[in-house]
């Protein structure tokens, strides 16, 4: 009896990808969490772990093919003897194993006897429990009246923990068991899937397209993202040679996101910061941070300052929910840092910057930027940002107008610092190192005056770092 392993949801941003490598072949044993595909998605190259264990019967996915969540990857026959004795033990939490041992020795038993057949068969050790442990937590079904007539309904159970996440529907979902199973297999909460059928009936197709759409919806921008500019292209070859090259996934993704972002009315506020003193500090303490494994950069220092700024101006750390007429304030401060890679622009996210020291931020930033360039970023590392910084100063330019990284509502651009003659109060000009900042914000959420205050706050703190202690 062959089962299908379908591409599970891999994070909210992944709807489909191009298969760069199939890591299993027919006849192989697979176990839960074992990588079975290498998938190039919009943002990263990922390994797709199996969520099932068994023996691969037939591969349905081919290299080079585009595959979507819910599509069949391979057929397998389950469990099998291939994952002999160690299976359970491999995955049971360590603490538990120890308890096991105690129990076993108490009863005068050897903890674990190897399976007589395990020699030939354990070439792949299933980790079923590891996967099972991820499944929804226990629901209690503690109705205990014995001779009550056979209570028929499963409603009680429906109120169990599994369903709590879904406030949308209370009763049974209008979806047949096969569709509910598909949803479970690919990691979609069936309660959240809108049904396209009469009276909201949910089909298998609905589940799949929901899985694909999740991200677009989250971005709250509806279909605007996909809409390409309605310009019909002329035949460029009339004027000379051309060459067509396919958009890489990162480029395509960037193009889509930018189109979405562009639909928001944005304003860019400029300012200049005197970083002469800061530069001295940076030089003085650079070695110390280097010893810790990072590089003390202006970006890192600004990220630190942003932690305080976002707390002081919470609307800059929000997102707009137009459908519900609400502004969503986030109580975490995760700053995305734009990184230029050979595949295009990537934005890894530094989490909880408000709680980290500058040194910690430097170390983390060095690591994450390097991983971005080596294409090793995981999806999680690119999700959950609340504000973005883009520093083009390393390349040059006196200023630019960054575009907000929707659904965030503001972005800070940093251009190249330069030494300028600055007029002093005593009438002299003094050479000072000036850093140009450009804050772009979503004008639906943020007013101009607040925009100016926000940049000014960042600038003040950079000029007088002691303010950070006063403020934060």
């Amino acid at each position, binding site marked *: 009896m062959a089962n299908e392993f379908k591409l599970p949801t891999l994070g909210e941003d992944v709807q489909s990808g191009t298969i760069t490598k199939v890591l299993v072949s027919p006849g192989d044993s697979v176990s839960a969490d074992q990588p079975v595909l290498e998938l190039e998605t919009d943002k990263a190259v990922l390994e797709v772990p199996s969520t099932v264990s068994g023996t691969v019967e037939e591969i349905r996915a081919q290299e080079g093919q585009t595959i979507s969540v819910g599509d069949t990857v391979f057929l397998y026959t389950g469990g099998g003897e291939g994952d002999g004795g160690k299976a359970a033990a491999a995955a049971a939490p360590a603490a538990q194993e120890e308890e096991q041992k105690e129990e076993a020795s108490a009863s005068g038993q050897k903890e674990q006897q190897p399976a*007589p057949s395990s020699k030939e068969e354990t070439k792949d050790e299933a980790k079923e429990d590891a996967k099972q442990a991820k499944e929804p937590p226990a629901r209690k079904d503690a109705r205990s009246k014995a001779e009550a007539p056979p209570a028929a309904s499963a409603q009680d159970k429906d109120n169990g923990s599994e369903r709590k996440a879904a406030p949308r529907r209370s009763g049974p979902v209008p979806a047949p068991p096969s569709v509910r199973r598909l949803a479970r297999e690919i990691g979609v909460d069936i309660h959240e899937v809108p049904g396209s059928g009469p009276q909201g009936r949910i089909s298998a197709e609905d589940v799949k397209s929901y899985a694909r759409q999740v991200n677009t919806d989250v971005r709250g921008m509806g279909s605007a993202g996909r809409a390409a500019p309605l310009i019909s292209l002329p035949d460029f070859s009339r004027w000379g040679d051309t060459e067509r090259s396919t958009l890489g996934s990162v480029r395509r993704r960037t193009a889509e996101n930018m189109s979405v972002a562009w639909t928001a009315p944005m304003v860019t506020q400029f300012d200049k910061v005197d970083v002469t003193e800061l530069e001295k500090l940076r030089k003085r303490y650079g070695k110390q941070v280097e010893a810790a494994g990072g590089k003390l950069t202006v970006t890192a220092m600004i990220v630190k300052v942003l932690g305080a700024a976002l707390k002081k101006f919470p609307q800059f750390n929000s997102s707009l929910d137009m459908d519900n007429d609400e502004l969503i304030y986030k109580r975490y401060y995760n700053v995305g840092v734009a990184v230029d890679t050979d595949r295009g622009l990537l934005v890894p996210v530094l989490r909880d910057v408000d709680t980290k020291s500058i040194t910690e931020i430097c170390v983390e930033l060095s690591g994450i930027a390097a991983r971005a360039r080596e294409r090793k970023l995981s999806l999680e590392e690119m999700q959950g940002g609340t504000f973005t910084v883009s520093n083009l100063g390393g390349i040059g330019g006196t200023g630019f107008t960054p575009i907000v990284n929707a659904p965030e509502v503001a972005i800070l651009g940093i251009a190249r610092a330069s030494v300028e003659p600055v007029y002093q109060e005593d009438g002299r000009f003094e050479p000072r190192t000036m850093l140009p900042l450009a804050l772009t914000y979503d004008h639906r959420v943020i007013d101009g005056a607040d925009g100016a205050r926000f940049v000014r706050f960042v600038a003040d703190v950079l000029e007088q770092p002691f303010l950070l202690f006063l403020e934060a």
Partner: protein
Amino acid sequence: MTEQARTRVAIIGGGPGGYAAAFMANDLGLDVTLIDVEKNPGGVCLYRGCIPSKAFLHVARILTEAREAAYWGIAFDEPKVDLNRLRESKDEVVKRMTGGLGQLCKSRKIKYIQGRASFEDSRTLSIIHDDGATERLETDYTILATGSRPTPLSELFLESPRMMDSTAALQMEDIPRNLLVVGGGYIGLELGTVYAAMGSKVTIVEKESTLLPGADPDLVEVLHKRLEPFVERILLNTSVASIKEARGGLAVTLEGKEAENKPAQFDRVLVCIGRRPNSSGVGLKNTRVSLTDGGLVEVDAQRRTKDPYIYAIGDLTGEPMLAHKASHEGRVAAESIAGQRTAFEPNAIPAVVFTDPEVAWCGLMEKEAEAKGIEVKVARFPWAASGRAATLNRPEGLTKLITDPDTEQILGVGIAGTGAGELISEGVLAVEMGATAYDVGFTIHPHPTLGETIMETADLIFGHAAHVHQSRPEPREAAGKE
């Protein structure tokens, strides 16, 4: 013992939970060992539950129908009952079924061990055979399916050859002249029906205010009305105060609303007031399995216990204590062990009371909707309007649908009437598929059948909802509309 015996999946208990799990695990390519104290699998369901009781209920039905043929002008002599032959036939049915299961195990290469198993630790079972010999079995996973047993009579009243639990009642040693059935739940009513058809004068006492407490009152009423002339008495809000041995019988004192002061004499007393999970004596203290106060095993959606190596299914995990629920859980547990993403999450578990008439229901019922404050739209179709019911001279039935008032999705179905047990499957399918009343109403049902009543009930639902299906002509005045 030189080499330790081991298995990928051990299943303790060969009832409908255990053997369904064994077959599923076997289908999924796992190495399975099934253990039960009986010679063959079958469990309570086959040996002393569903199957023998249904065999007797079939006989009861023949007897009743023969008597009722008088309505059509056909008269039979009073039937002669050969109790020995009756028991024999029932035993043959049981043997055929359990033997068949044993055979299936063999042909599927499922190892079957006859013996009593208990845990030495989470992954070691010790099995005691009939002859006292023990063997030890190492397991990767164990599915616990030891089922339930009637609450011991000794705990309740007294032990006496005249006292019966359901198991003893199915032995049918004799047909008592006077039988008291304690408990108006489904088992008491089914067995009471059997004895009444055989000629016993049956008195039923139930401490709640209704038979089948928990079921919707309109369904119960259909059964109650027909039972009344069929049995001696039905005493509600009444319980047993004491039972004493008396000369030639048992003297029973009842208490409650309808009880008389002086004790009444019965030849036998059948007690059906509850079942206990078989969760003790299995060595669970040597594992991490946790129990509720009632002794039920706590499990998650995959039927995994608090011990990662042990699953539990069937009566052991609680209500509804029904064979088909046990089997479904067995399949889920096996799938989970095989590494599949699976969960026990039915939208409807059917319940059937095989009395005459039968009462069956599934999904959300009115009583529950009321208790939980769920808004529902209900349609009822009395069988007086059914041609088929008329040809059977059984017009007392009732079919009802419980639907979502906004979407008309069918959430529950209730049927009381002859053949309800067979009819309810359509209801279960409708609920599981998320069908709307329109779906069912616009599915052609054969005429004349009792199944049509389900279609007609659905018609009543959307017939009223003018805003949804306007193209439809105004609903005819359905005879059954209330």
